[in-house]
């Protein structure tokens, strides 16, 4: 079976600066892949290429059989099928939680408002926030906002979810509530690509770990191999530094 996401020899430049160099990997349906690496190594850039939030100049990315780099591809439609969760939540502050959950269902997918509302509230309940439907994002804690953001992405019935450091802007006591939602999602069989430095989450939930450095994928292996004996020195250094904390 062909993978849900396949990234093939992707390179990207900002002007003269090469951010990504020949990145190749794939994520199978139902697989959970954690992407880690030092700051500035290109992790965010790589996953933003997957849903075409960032263009790339070389190589190809295929999501569920559709080529992201093909100029003929309907990018809004492709993006509507891939969920994304951001470091800073990016809920829409001028809209209530309910409207945050329904706006894209109605305006992008063309669902009826009632149907969108039912779906949104069901997901809100699932992330444990049913009581907050009428509030505005500014009235919720960071952890709560991030859970709403996950529910908002799930409301689109995505075929895969991308996470870009979903817990790194959170106070420590709120990290677990978000990781729990992600863990549950993984157990339900969601295809996930997660940029995160939460190595506990990676150990428990990931199938594979990708380690990036200076725009290159240095390691791409099963979780146990990565934590057992990373081959590259850079990954070893990175792990020992991050596990000290």
């Amino acid at each position, binding site marked *: 079976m062909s993978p849900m996401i396949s990234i093939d020899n992707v390179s990207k430049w900002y002007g003269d600066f090469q951010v990504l160099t020949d990145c190749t990997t794939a994520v199978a349906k139902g697989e959970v892949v954690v992407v880690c690496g030092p700051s500035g190594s290109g992790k965010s850039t790589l996953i933003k290429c997957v849903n075409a939030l960032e263009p790339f100049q070389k190589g190809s990315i295929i999501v569920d059989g559709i080529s992201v780099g093909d100029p003929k591809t309907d990018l809004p439609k492709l993006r509507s099928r891939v969920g994304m969760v951001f470091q800073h939540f990016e809920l*829409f502050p001028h809209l209530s939680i309910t409207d945050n959950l329904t706006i*894209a269902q109605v305006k992008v997918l063309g669902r009826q408002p009632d149907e969108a509302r039912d779906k949104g509230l069901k997901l809100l309940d699932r992330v444990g926030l049913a009581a907050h439907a009428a509030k505005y994002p500014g009235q919720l804690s960071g952890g709560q906002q991030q859970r709403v953001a996950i529910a908002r992405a799930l409301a689109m019935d995505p075929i895969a979810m991308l996470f870009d450091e979903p817990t790194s802007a959170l106070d420590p006591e709120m990290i677990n509530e978000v990781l729990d939602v992600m863990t549950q999602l993984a157990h339900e069989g969601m295809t996930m690509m997660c940029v995160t430095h939460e190595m506990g989450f990676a150990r428990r939930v990931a199938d594979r770990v990708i380690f990036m450095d200076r725009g290159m994928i240095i390691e791409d292996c099963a979780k146990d191999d990565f934590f057992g004996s990373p081959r590259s020195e850079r990954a070893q250094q990175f792990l020992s530094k991050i596990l000290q904390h």
Partner: protein
Amino acid sequence: MEFDFSQIGPSLPGLAEGMWLTLQLLALAVLGGVAIGTLIALARLSNNRLLSGLAKGYVNIFRSVPLLLVITWFYFAVPFLLRWITGSDTPVGAFASCLIAFMLFEAAYYSEIVRAGIQSISRGQIGAAYALGMTYAQAMRLVVLPQAFRKMTPLLLQQSIILFQDTSLVYAVGLMDFLNTARSRGDIAGQPHEFLLFAGFVYFVISFGASRLVKRLQQRLTV
């Protein structure tokens, strides 16, 4: 010098008519100016060099010429342009030509305010809108502009208070707005100075009151 304000009372209905015209002109010019200004701001911020260049040129031109000139020029030019487009004589009154002049002139100023408003919205918001499958137009209409306008409302209102005063320039083409009405009534009544003083007082009270309200709104928005 002795002032005699006795004729102002009897002239109030006529003056109110003038004020009504001023306010109509103001309201329509603000609506049109903000709408056009928003389009110019979007053009200015677009990746298309030609589009953003044209928008920049537009703003620079209108900000470098006196409003009075634009008003008089449009008064003479609009009928010409219309005949050129439609091929027949289409009479446009002074009101319509003034309105068009104000809209296009103010759009240059409004566009700068709206542009700053759009730029104050973080790129992450646009990213989130796109990630949900929104098109550029949807992301702007549903996510960016509502937030930008909320932030920019005080500045847009402030600019509109300036426009309220500037509407008096229509005397140049003989439109009977509030100031022009006051002038002509004052002449007829033989009390020109008193009528102008009264007009100035009315402009001051409205502008000052409105600007105090805007300040309060601004404070409420920043809390």
